[in-house]
């Protein structure tokens, strides 16, 4: 394991202990351990199909797992703290014939302490599309709406599964700014990404998932530091070094 510089805290926002998950006979996650402190942006890096989405979905009870324990905000029963968790799934969708405004009002109503929708739309520059129906949104607009849906409940813990995948740099930067603002408000954010620039720029702590396990963890700087002398000072090179150059078969 590389670059363990995780602070030792009394209380964690998220604790994952010994999580294992298989699809049939294929082991996808093996004894995964993660501890996320309160506040900050945490990133999960891994190659396509390594099991990042599976890990996130196991955390929120969307997929059953074989072994291990997940605690979020001090609760092992995730249903009890759903009101404090905001999630943007990777393959998600919304009611196609509702407008942006209607979607945010609807999803905001599910939470006890939702945030101001006008401010949220302003933060993600959605004011001009507030009356547009979901089915008429572009990829970037739809992704911003999905991120907004994850934030509308004013959650303490936010999970974003590849929030900037396929977006142009302007929208990516807009989402990064939004996440920084959430972090400043004390929120804990866990995101999965393929963008090394994103991981390096906005994440305080990274976990690299490879061959069913977390093989490196620490701040982007510390992970690079571990390999600078022997390899490179770019996170992308370090990532390739750790996870290998060969093309592997994908898991979900």
């Amino acid at each position, binding site marked *: 394991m590389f670059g363990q510089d995780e602070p030792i805290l009394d209380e964690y926002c998220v604790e994952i202990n010994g999580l294992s998950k298989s699809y049939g006979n294929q082991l996808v996650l093996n004894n995964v351990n993660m501890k996320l402190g309160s506040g900050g942006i945490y990133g999960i890096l891994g190659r396509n199909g390594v099991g990042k989405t599976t890990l996130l979905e196991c955390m*929120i009870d969307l997929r059953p797992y074989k072994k291990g324990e997940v605690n979020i905000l001090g609760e092992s029963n995730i249903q009890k703290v759903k009101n404090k968790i905001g999630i943007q799934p990777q393959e998600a969708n919304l009611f*196609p014939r*509702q407008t942006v405004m209607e979607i945010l009002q609807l999803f905001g109503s*599910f*939470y006890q302490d939702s945030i101001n929708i006008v401010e949220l739309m302003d933060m993600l520059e959605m004011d001009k599309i507030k009356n547009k129906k979901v089915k008429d949104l572009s990829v970037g607009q739809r992704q911003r709406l999905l991120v907004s*849906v994850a934030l509308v409940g004013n959650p303490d813990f936010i999970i974003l599964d590849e929030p900037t995948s396929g977006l142009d740099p302007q929208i990516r930067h807009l989402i990064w700014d939004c996440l920084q603002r959430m972090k400043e408000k004390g929120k804990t954010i866990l995101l999965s990404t393929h963008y090394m620039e994103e991981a390096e720029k906005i994440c305080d702590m990274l976990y690299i998932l490879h061959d069913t396990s977390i093989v490196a963890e620490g701040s982007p700087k510390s992970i690079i530091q571990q390999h600078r002398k022997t390899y490179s000072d770019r996170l992308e090179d370090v990532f390739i070094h750790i996870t290998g150059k060969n093309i592997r078969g994908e898991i979900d």
Partner: protein
Amino acid sequence: MQHQKSSFSLMIKTGLTEIQRDARTFFFTLLFPFFFLGMFAAMNFAIPPTEDMGLSFLEYLFPGILVFALVSIGISGTTVPIVEMRSKGILKTLKMTPLKPESFILSQIVVRFILSFFQISIFTILGFILGYIELGNIIPFILISLLGMMMILIFGFFFANFFNNIEVASGLLNALVVPLLMVSGTLLPIYIYILPDVVQKFIYIVPFTYLTDLYHSSLFGKEGEFSNFINIGVILSISLVFFYLTKKTFKWT
């Protein structure tokens, strides 16, 4: 409590506007049965009264067309939208929120009851104007319709659990439901079929048979195939069994 109430009413509003803004679903669930009624009204002039009850063709068919309308909302208007919501990941997104599954299901039921109430009201007015429903029969007519709607709606949710593709769901349901409506005596009198006994017995396992029989005996005061007690009992029993199966097999993703 206040926020739960508002989330529930917003779910109902969303369900209604999703149907209202989709021209295809709106047409087939709400408007099509009236075209159907008009078509049979035209045929009424050419067809002699049925042997079954001495009723005119349209008199006989009137409750059947309402059953058809309820089936449009309860099955096509429930199964297909729920399969669509599941296949497109909308249910997955909802599952990730604090929204309780029972709140979601209940809101969907309320949406369909609102739509069916609209249908039932129009049919009641039409039936009254045409003289098929007497003043004293209005309440039984509405109650039977709501009972039928409950059963049909449960079928709609039940079928939604077994499909992941809208086209397959839509195609198979049409292929299944229309023949069932035909052989159950809902759309055509049973006596017109020249079928072997074994096949004739099949109609007794079709739930619509009991609903149609209940309509006929209550509206026209004629003796039906079964007693009202049996008709209501069968409808309630089928509803309970399928409700249990639906609850057991319901899936978000």
